[in-house]
């Protein structure tokens, strides 16, 4: 009788052990997902900066550089900063928002941390950032974080 009880306990412990080994110790590492997210951030940022806009056909890279250095570019009634922010927001609404990706885009200089900030990753885990420095005297840097 007691042996039967012991056998039941051993079976239950073995099953519990199997679960622990299978789902905790042998948990697969998701390398490809991290690579895919980093690739998404890099590809998005590269394509974004190269995109020409309706503001004198300037690309977003040049608009951001003008914004960071208080340059002369005007886009109708808007400054280069406002126009770039609106264009980037529009592009992200049609891409990352549609794909239900959370993100945070930040353009910053060494004197101004939040020149342009779009999106937020509050409460989410940062997966991989894409960072692109641009050649201005105040070290303009654009960063796109994809988070989940």
């Amino acid at each position, binding site marked *: *009788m007691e042996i*039967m*009880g012991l*056998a*039941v306990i051993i*079976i*239950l412990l073995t*099953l519990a052990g*199997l*679960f622990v080994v*299978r789902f905790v110790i042998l948990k*697969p590492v998701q390398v*490809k*997902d991290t690579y*895919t997210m980093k*690739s*998404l951030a*890099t*590809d*998005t940022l*590269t*394509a*974004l900066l*190269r*995109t*020409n*806009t309706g503001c004198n*056909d300037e*690309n977003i890279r040049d608009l951001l550089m003008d914004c960071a250095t208080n340059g002369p570019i005007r886009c109708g009634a808007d400054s280069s900063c406002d126009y770039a922010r609106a*264009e980037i927001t*529009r*592009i992200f609404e*049609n*891409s990352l928002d549609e*794909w239900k990706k959370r993100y945070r885009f930040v353009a910053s200089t060494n004197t101004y941390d939040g020149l342009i900030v779009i999106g937020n990753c509050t409460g989410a885990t940062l997966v991989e950032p894409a960072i692109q420095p641009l050649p201005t005297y105040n070290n303009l840097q654009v960063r796109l974080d994809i988070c989940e």
Partner: protein
Amino acid sequence: MKKKAQLKIWTTIAILIVFFVILMFGFIFYTQVEKISFERTQREAEARRSIDVAQVLTNLPELQCSVGAVERGICFDYYKLEVAEESINDEWLYYYGMFGYSDIEVKDLSGSGKNFTLYENQGDKTSYTTGFIPISIYDPIERLFSFGVIKVKSYYGQ
């Protein structure tokens, strides 16, 4: 005495039944969990497959733009996309070897707003996963870049 012995036998049988029932439930539960885990792994593999198909597409010389070859990032030529809409359909069997059961679309999100449907083949598959890759689309006549996206629907299952 006899009754006591009989009672003992029935008790032992009952314990054995409980033992095997617990064992059976444990085994069924474990196999169900494994099945769900396998299905999720299969779905993740199919999702990655749609990205793999998109990456094959980005390396096709019949679509790549001819400017900025040393630049990073993926770039398609606008007019090559227009031609590819027809030419990929004309050589369907050749591209089937690359793309399999999938629908491939390139969308111009900031320029002309045009959608290019390059390949369609659902076959008899019922489920699908979707992958996206952001790209630049270059107009070599205007010399302007627009923001585009490759959308791949990869079909699987029956």
